[in-house]
């Protein structure tokens, strides 16, 4: 949930909302916030499933170090969503192993 009023930081200033897709669904977020924050606001906790054990992962360090929150963004896998900023029309997909969830390996990159 967004913190609209904060006792120290004051009130949230209005910011531009943008649309992006998450696994094909259209969601909205604030322009320039990390993708991970926009997803969290939309209730998305699972960013990817691991290769070996197929376990869910999400935000862990939030500063681009642990690489746990990686997703397929605009077709590029392993994109750190906690430090990649949201732009209008971004295509964000849950990563499954090293590719997007549901994607087939058809010999094309």
């Amino acid at each position, binding site marked *: 949930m967004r913190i609209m009023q904060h006792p120290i930081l004051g009130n949230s200033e209005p910011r531009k909302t943008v649309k992006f897709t998450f696994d094909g669904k259209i969601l909205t977020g604030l322009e320039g916030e990390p993708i991970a924050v926009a997803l969290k606001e939309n209730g998305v906790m699972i960013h990817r499933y691991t*290769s070996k054990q197929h376990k869910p992962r999400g935000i862990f360090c939030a500063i681009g170090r642990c690489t746990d929150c990686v997703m397929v963004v605009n077709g*590029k*896998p*392993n994109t750190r969503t906690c430090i990649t900023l949201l732009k209008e029309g971004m295509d964000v997909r849950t990563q499954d*192993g*090293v*590719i997007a969830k549901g994607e087939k*390996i058809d*010999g*094309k*990159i």
Partner: protein
Amino acid sequence: MSDTKTANVIVVGSGIVGNSCAYYCAKKGLSVIVLDEDIIGNGASSRNGGGVRAFFRNPLELPLAKYAIDNIWPHLSEELGVDIEFKQGGNFRLGIGEKEEANLKKLAKEGNEQGLKVDLMNQKEVQNFCCYVSPEVTYAAYCHNDGHANPLITTLAFYRKAKAMGVKYYTGEEVVKLATIRGKVRKVITALGNCYEGDAIIVAAGCASTKIVQTVGIDMPHAPSIIEAFVTEAMPPLFDFMMGTASSAFYGHQTKHGSFVFGGGSGFESFNDGYSDSCPTRQITAPSVMRGIMKYFPCLHDLKIIRTWAGWINNTPDGCAVIGPVDDLPGLYIAAGYTGHGFCMGPVTGKILSEVISGEKPCVSYEQLKLSRFKARQ
């Protein structure tokens, strides 16, 4: 100084060569001690690109490489009890332009004459074979025999198995001197003042070998150079082959893990501060190799690089390894000077030396690689 430790065989160096010597000797029932100045396999064995190749091999080394690929590598995972990720996916050498085409044709002809199976492909055939190759590539040679494996795991798997069979390992134990007893090399003395004694001393210490054998008056010519490698993030499996170019701009393969390992140089490899126990990467090398890769495989451009590293290559005058006993000095065996081929040749070296030390006929002839081959020009 502690008591002298004795064994049938003392191996200096715990890289893939040293560990394979230890393993095969132990398999013959010999007692073995392995000494390393560093931790296990921290030299070229853990820094190479994992190529297992007979194609484009110097005829001196070819019999050993072929024997290894036919008889050792395919069974190594089973033998060592660890998946060493050997994949016989072939060797794909790419060329651009007429000059390189001619070069590849010559190599293919030689390869086929040597009993390898090498196909030549024109631009269209290359595209049909692998859609990831740049259309700029006009010609390619594909050798079916070659493959690749995981050098890190293979080296440690030999160590693990040898250790389990009773081989004694001492690391952080830098050998500074060999010594003879009654005309036979028997003693190994370390920087810490420890002494080891054996019937056979195998020096398999990579670039450090020359200095070690000098202590018993053996001159082994070598010219260490630094080459770099790097690894990418993992991808779904795209291809099984070892890739390289006619111009030797880079080499590499996709690992079982999905990451790509590439190696190459910037052209300044032979110009360095001289062999030492460190080999930092240079600012200019990795980017130059990457540009080479993207020229041949443009689709890999957005693969993320995870790590780069460098390693020493122990070059000899003819670019081939020095393997076998030293003619005029009984007790001393050399397995060094691999000129970048030690990974592929390591396992077979161990087998050969274990047989020679046991007085058996070696599985493949190696005499052409003995140190005595180096003679001054007429």
